[in-house]
């Protein structure tokens, strides 16, 4: 068996794991974004500019995440590192649960204009976890691509599954989750899911190496 084929087979086996995890990160990104509006409302209201702040910060954070994730995928891409991204994203969400009010209080006192207040608060609360979640997308592509010919198809499949996850995260959060649970409960559940996802990837990655 040529060395390349030997390399391919196990990667195919982990394909479903990568797809599942990409779905999960897509789901969580949009769920957090939607909760962001609620988190900021007590300090900055729920005007259109609050949503403007949240959406722009999420976009900037994701774009930075794509860049870093893509760069990190160059050298020896592996599932263990992939798993670590999920755990880091989980840790990045924790300050929203425990320090959001303190952070927003400080911003509220420092900045009068709720437009810039909400922009700064969004940056403090959401930039880091969203950027880390953004790293997952290009890294997933790298883990699943094994030849250039099919790279576009693999990327398409991953966009498909993670964007579908985003759609579902948006829908479930806005229709049901906020009706059933407190916001911190939802966030802590997502932290747990991310840690489990990270553990899964890390374990599989350790077995393979």
């Amino acid at each position: 068996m040529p060395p390349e084929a030997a390399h391919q087979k196990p990667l195919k086996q982990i394909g479903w794991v990568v797809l599942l995890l990409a779905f999960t990160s897509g789901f969580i990104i949009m769920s957090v974004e939607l909760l962001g509006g609620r988190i900021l409302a007590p300090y900055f209201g729920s005007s259109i500019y609050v949503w403007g702040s949240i959406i722009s910060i999420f976009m900037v954070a994701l774009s930075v995440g794509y860049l870093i994730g893509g760069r990190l995928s160059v050298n020896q891409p592996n599932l263990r590192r992939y798993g670590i991204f999920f755990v880091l994203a989980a840790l990045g969400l924790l300050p929203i649960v425990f320090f959001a009010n303190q952070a927003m209080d400080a911003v509220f006192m420092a900045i009068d204009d709720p437009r810039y207040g909400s922009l700064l608060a969004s940056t403090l609360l959401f930039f880091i976890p969203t950027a880390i979640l953004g790293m997952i997308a290009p890294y997933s592509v790298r883990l699943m691509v094994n030849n250039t010919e099919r790279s576009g198809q693999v990327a398409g499949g991953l966009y498909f599954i993670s964007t579908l996850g985003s759609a579902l995260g948006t829908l479930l959060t806005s229709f049901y989750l906020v009706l059933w649970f407190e916001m911190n409960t939802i966030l802590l559940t997502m932290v747990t899911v991310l840690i489990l996802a990270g553990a899964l990837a890390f374990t599989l990655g350790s077995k393979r190496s």
Partner: protein
Amino acid sequence: MTKRWIVFSMLLLSAVPSFSDVIHREKSLYRNIEVQETGRDRCLVFAQRSDDRRQSCVNLKNPDRVVFSYVRMTFAGLLLNERPGSILIVGLGGGTLPSALGALYPEASIDVIEIDPAVVRVAESFFDFQVSDRVKVWVQDARVFIKRAGRRGDQYDLIILDAFTGEYIPEHLMTREFLQETQSLLSNTGVLVANTFSSSELYDYESVTYRDVFGKFFNFKLPASGNRVVIASSKPLPDSRALQAAASRLSVPLSRFGVAIESFPRFLTTRSDWDEDAPVLTDQFSPANLLKNR
């Protein structure tokens, strides 16, 4: 026979001209705004749905008269403080309340918070609402204004929450934390009046939330009206004799607004007619728009 009647009434209906003229229409950042004239009434309409009655109207022949019963019911708050020196109103609408209260209390300072600049323009152009040194409008989110006012230590003798159009509820203005921030703005003799929801599951949740923050409050419903007004106070609530005495004193000054204040006290009750086990609405949990439809 029945068929002929149907045809006849259809003919009759089609013969009546459409009696609501739209004299102004604009799309704002938050909603569609229409000013309609129906006979002698000029109305501000937010939602285009016919079942949305939460709008503001003025009677052109008798502009002092308050057209809507829920707005008249708001005056019941004066039974607990007959001379408010400072008033905060959340939600401008057509400006009925600030105009009436400004006329009633020429010495009082009135702050109005309205999120939508288009509503302010429409109130000024079509409803004769006037901003002055005493009557100020702040185009802001009420939560932001109230939080800042609290940090400044501002106090009001009368706070009126009238921010709900019926079509979309600002959920961050329904929570325990918001009511606590509002409560902190009440002076020693301060009174809070809130036009709130009287049907759906939201009634239970909202009532429980007000109880949680203010303790006992007056729940005010009129038999003919579908509205509910919450009246809470910094001081202990007055008894029915004190309410009746205040109503007698207020009846003359309020008569020009068409407010039959003397009929109000017997409908003010502290009894709960809601599900007391409903959860409190908080900043963490406030699905008001989802509850409204249940």
